[in-house]
């Protein structure tokens, strides 16, 4: 715990050692080894994979949540409807904007904050504790806090601050819904990025930094040639995990804008939720779910290759 490193070295050493022996594992030994794994594996398959198979089944049917008996096989017509649905395209685009916007801005801010925190100064641990707090507040609470206490057009703090500078009051969540959601998301996710980058900074080999300073490399040169390449793996990991978590954002959108005005700030999770639980259209919602999963698989297989390179998990 004390020396933060990524476990690639020990990981590959351990797996290399076991690789040699694994060929001689007998059948009985194989099952003895599999034993501890199976409950978790079977549980995960049942709870996560079976519902997805059902999603595919529903996506080929026309079905209303309120009248489950009205089940009708319709082939691919739900998918054809999606292809014609401009709202689906818009919410898909919103998903991309919200996810990438949040992850990239949070990462830049996180790097800045991590660099600032990686210097000794008075009260450093207090400052760090304050900075990670936004990430710890319940997302439902942060949504309410932003929508009501900060961005409310009449008594929100943002407009009061603008008023101090003589600027017009803005109805944030209806005029700039996506920006409002991004502000709340970036605020919540910056500490996450900061923590990962800070861990990276503190894992820097000190002797290399000293050598650089002895060689007369300035702060900027050291940062660009030594720190940044070292941080790359941490930044990649942060962006990747950030995307996995942020793409599923629902709480902020549900509570801050309800996807509105219209569907201006709805992302795919919110739109599918609307179709299923407010429109009761199971077939459509399921078909959208399938499309989202296919898109996720395409993006994720690239992302997973990255994660596995980062962890260097080998057989």
């Amino acid at each position, binding site marked *: 715990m004390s020396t933060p490193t990524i476990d690639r070295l020990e990981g590959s050493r351990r797996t290399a050692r076991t690789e040699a022996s694994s060929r001689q594992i007998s059948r009985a030994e194989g099952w003895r080894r599999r034993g501890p794994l199976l409950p978790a594996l079977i549980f995960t398959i049942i709870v996560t994979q079976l519902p997805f198979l059902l999603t595919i089944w529903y996506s080929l049917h026309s079905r209303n949540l309120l009248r489950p008996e009205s089940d009708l096989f319709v082939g691919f017509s739900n998918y054809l409807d999606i292809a014609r649905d401009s709202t689906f395209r818009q919410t898909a685009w919103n998903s991309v904007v919200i996810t990438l916007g949040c992850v990239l801005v949070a990462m830049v801010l996180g790097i800045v904050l991590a660099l600032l925190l990686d210097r000794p100064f008075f009260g450093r641990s207090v400052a760090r504790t304050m900075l990670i707090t936004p990430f710890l507040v319940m997302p*439902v609470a942060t949504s*309410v806090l932003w929508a009501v206490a900060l961005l409310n057009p009449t008594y929100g703090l943002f407009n009061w601050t603008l008023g101090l500078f003589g600027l017009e009051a803005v109805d944030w969540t209806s005029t700039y819904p996506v920006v409002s959601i991004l502000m709340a998301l970036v605020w919540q996710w910056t500490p996450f990025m900061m*923590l990962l980058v800070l861990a990276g900074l503190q894992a820097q080999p000190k002797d290399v930094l000293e050598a650089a300073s002895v060689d007369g490399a300035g702060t900027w040169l050291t940062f660009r040639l030594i720190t940044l390449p070292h941080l790359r793996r941490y930044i990649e990991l942060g962006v990747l*995990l950030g995307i996995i978590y942020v793409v599923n954002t629902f709480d902020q959108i549900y509570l801050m804008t309800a996807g509105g005005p219209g569907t201006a700030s709805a992302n795919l999770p919110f739109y599918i939720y609307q179709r299923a639980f407010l429109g009761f259209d199971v077939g459509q919602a399921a078909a959208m779910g399938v499309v989202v999963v296919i898109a996720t698989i395409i993006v994720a297989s690239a992302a997973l290759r990255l994660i596995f390179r980062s962890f260097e998990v080998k057989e």
Partner: protein
Amino acid sequence: MSVATPVVTPRATNRRFSSGFLTTVTWLLAIGFFFPVAWMAMTAFKQENQAASDPPTWFFTPTLDQFRAVIEGGSMVYVGNSVIATGVSTVLVLLLGVPAAYALSIRPVKKVSDVLFFFISTKMLPVVAVIVPIYVVAGQLKVLDNIWTLVVLYTAMNLPIAVWMMRSFFIEVPGEVLEAASIDGAGLMRTMRSVLLPMVAPGIAATALICVIFAWNEFFFALNLTASQAATVPILIVSTMTSEGLFLARLCAAALLASLPVILAGWIAQKQLVRGLSMGAIK
């Protein structure tokens, strides 16, 4: 003699100045990021007319009225449900996840990376893609608005994180220790109980912390699968917001109380937090 008087070069003064400047910037940013939370906490101690005032009220006599209203307003049912959903799912995650991580590290099965790949890929599956069948099946099994439905789903939600994280702790256990234990004649169970588990105990605690945070804060399943019987704390906040009109101070009191357990846990366990959030990749 020249050594005795330290020479203050312009560069040194410059550095001291810039260091002070950076410290000031850091503190301003820290206060800026923390401010919304502080404002939420402040508002929770106000009367309603002070909470939604224009201009904002900065100085006031703090009151506990809002906390009293939240606690006496039947919030204990929600807290009880959240405690069950969070606590039981975390225990189940550990019971399933620790042995699985063991089977992926110390005495590994074949195809370790395929299994790890499978676990992490379930985290990438958007929840929204499976909510419809889960809702329909739960309805047919008559387990809608049932806290045990959430327990099962939260277990599945956190299990992949726990497997990855615990594996990263098992990998750190030196092989020599386990060899020594087996030479000393300790059987599998005994090695587990008296050698392995004590060594990864901090890892189990860190894993539990992450599972508690995610389960306690979960909103999407709770919103769609519960109504009055099994509603959890996030639902309480939303219902405070919508059903009773806008009571900002009471809303902030509820939000503060709801967030407090995780905030305190995160403050105490900052180091474990990084490792958990990176699923064990960063130590």
